[in-house]
């Protein structure tokens, strides 16, 4: 496997004053399912369009499989794109849409037919050959777009929010299907989404973007457990931010005064220096435990009162006020539902290993 299949070297793209992509460098591995994740307007689509050749960078270089493609037009690049709105040609039917990209490959008729047949069965569209775009459902159009790109056997498949237009259930199905498809054909996928669950559940690695820059590039579980900064921690999943201040360092741990709860010795993964006053402790709702009795075997166990609950079926969220903490905490529990605490009085327990220290910038 080529570790540097796609190399993005210090790429910037400016539209007038807007720095849509701001000095980004990424290396993507061969066969990887790589996601670009970020809020609206962060530059995901622009980066993808730079890879496809629809935009040319203001600065920087782009290599695919060792070849510099920075100046190549889209039709000369070994990439294909699945567009956000699918861009199925409305004036030709499904099979002609799929054959569209084969014309310039110089294959024999038999090879063409075989490829079309293969890809049709791959995306399960047999029997839809004669249909036109307006006779297809959203999910089917999505498959046509996928088939049309895959039939060319690109080195890299670029997907711009391909599931965005589908309803939730179909989207969940397609996520699994797309993931399996990618594993079975082994083509490198670069997948753009603003949906963090989608990115986390599908990808080998995720680059979280904001304002044209990469905030963090890691495997999904790393993103969730060990966010590099407040933006990532806030964007991926749900979390509680408690204010704090660092004191003395102890090797890879550090003393932190959290709210007015006192001092705790916490992992200092990001190597924050001692006596920093603008510290945020991120604690996931499901990492905390809610109970009737005090939990003496937990590092921290605090009396609390429940302000509000919301029931989600697989879990319940409790919004609790804790003595010594200025804000309402969100705690989620699969064990208790909202019937369990009639009185509103309870205990909230926290493990020190679940506290992620972050610096306010």
């Amino acid at each position: 496997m080529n570790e540097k299949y796609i190399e993005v070297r210090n790429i910037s793209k400016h539209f007038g004053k807007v720095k849509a992509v701001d000095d980004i460098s990424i290396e993507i591995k061969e066969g990887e399912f790589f996601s670009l994740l970020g809020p609206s307007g962060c530059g995901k689509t622009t980066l993808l369009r730079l890879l496809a050749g629809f935009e040319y960078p203001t600065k920087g270089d782009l290599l695919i499989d060792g070849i510099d493609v920075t100046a190549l037009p889209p039709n000369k690049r070994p990439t294909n794109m699945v567009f956000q709105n699918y861009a199925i040609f409305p004036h030709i039917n499904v099979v002609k849409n799929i054959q569209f990209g084969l014309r310039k490959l110089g294959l024999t008729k038999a090879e063409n037919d075989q490829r079309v047949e293969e890809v049709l069965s791959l995306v399960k569209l047999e029997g839809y050959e004669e249909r036109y775009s307006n006779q297809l459902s959203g999910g089917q159009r999505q498959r046509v777009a996928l088939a049309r790109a895959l039939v060319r056997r690109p080195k890299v498949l670029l997907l711009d929010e391909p599931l965005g237009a589908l309803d939730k259930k179909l989207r969940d199905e397609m996520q699994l299907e797309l993931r399996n498809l990618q594993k079975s054909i082994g083509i490198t996928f670069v997948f753009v989404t603003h949906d963090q669950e989608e990115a986390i559940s599908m990808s080998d690695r995720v680059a979280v973007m904001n304002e044209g820059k990469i905030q963090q590039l890691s495997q999904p579980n790393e993103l969730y457990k060990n966010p590099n900064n407040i933006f990532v921690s806030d964007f991926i999943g749900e979390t509680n931010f408690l204010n704090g201040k660092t004191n003395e360092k102890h090797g890879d741990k550090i003393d932190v005064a959290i709210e007015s709860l006192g001092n705790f010795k916490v992992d200092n993964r990001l190597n924050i220096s001692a006596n920093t006053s603008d510290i945020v402790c991120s604690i996931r709702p499901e990492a905390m435990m809610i109970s009737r009795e005090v939990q003496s075997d937990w590092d921290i166990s605090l009396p609390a009162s429940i302000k509000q609950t919301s029931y989600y079926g697989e879990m319940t969220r409790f919004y609790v006020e804790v003595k010594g903490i200025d804000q309402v905490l969100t705690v989620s529990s699969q064990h208790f539902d909202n019937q369990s605490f009639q009185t509103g009085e309870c205990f909230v327990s926290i493990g020190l290993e679940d506290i992620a220290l972050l610096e306010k910038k």
Partner: protein
Amino acid sequence: MEQKNNSLLVYTIFYFLFLYIPVLFLPLFSFNDSNYMSFPLSGFTFRHYEDMWSKTPVFRALWVSVKVGVIASVVSTVIALMAAKAFTKYKFIGSRVSYAAVLLPFLIPEIILAVSLIVIWLSLGFKLGLVPVTIGHILFCTPFCMLILVSRIEGFDSSLEEASRDLGENAWGTFWKVSFPLYLPGIIASLLLGFIISFDEFILAFFLSGSDPTLPMYMWNQLRFIKKLPHVLALGAIIIVATTFVVLLAYWLMNLGQAKEKDFKI
């Protein structure tokens, strides 16, 4: 509520009556068995139509108008298509100004256009005739054609062209395989309306055509002789019907494209 709707309805009916009654007098009198355009009607006849068929100058004028109309509408549509493409795709410095410049002949009084063309044409040492008429018509039709095509191309999803590039086609192939077929209803509408505008145009033809009359000029010439009025009425009636048909066809084509476009969107 009801009251208001009724008054609007009355207004609408009057509006259409006002608009179309005068026009409908032409066909009405063209079937009237008399040489004068006056009431009471004196009987039904096809005589004026039959007389018209026997006149070769009508057909010569018709042929002239068709030739000029076809050339003017094709050339205008080609120019308009290129312009529309440029204006919708690129925002360049001065694009608004040049957009306005293309539309200007549409707003300048025709007579001024005609006079300026005649001055230039003669001072260049050319003779009047159908060539300057055609050029004048191209100038005059292009803004109409461009407005039709701009509205067509604006509703067009540019990611289709990108998809074509992405799938290996170069710019030229993309135009012929993707853009052109999708613009086609607009292009046909532009050709039809361009043709009608040229076909109906009188002032430019009057100033520039020299000795070869177009159909509107032929009619104008005939009007000088009171006896020939009924032929003009018959001819006018036919032109009204044909024009209405072509305009409806063009309108239908434009809407056809638009309606489909909506289906294409997700």
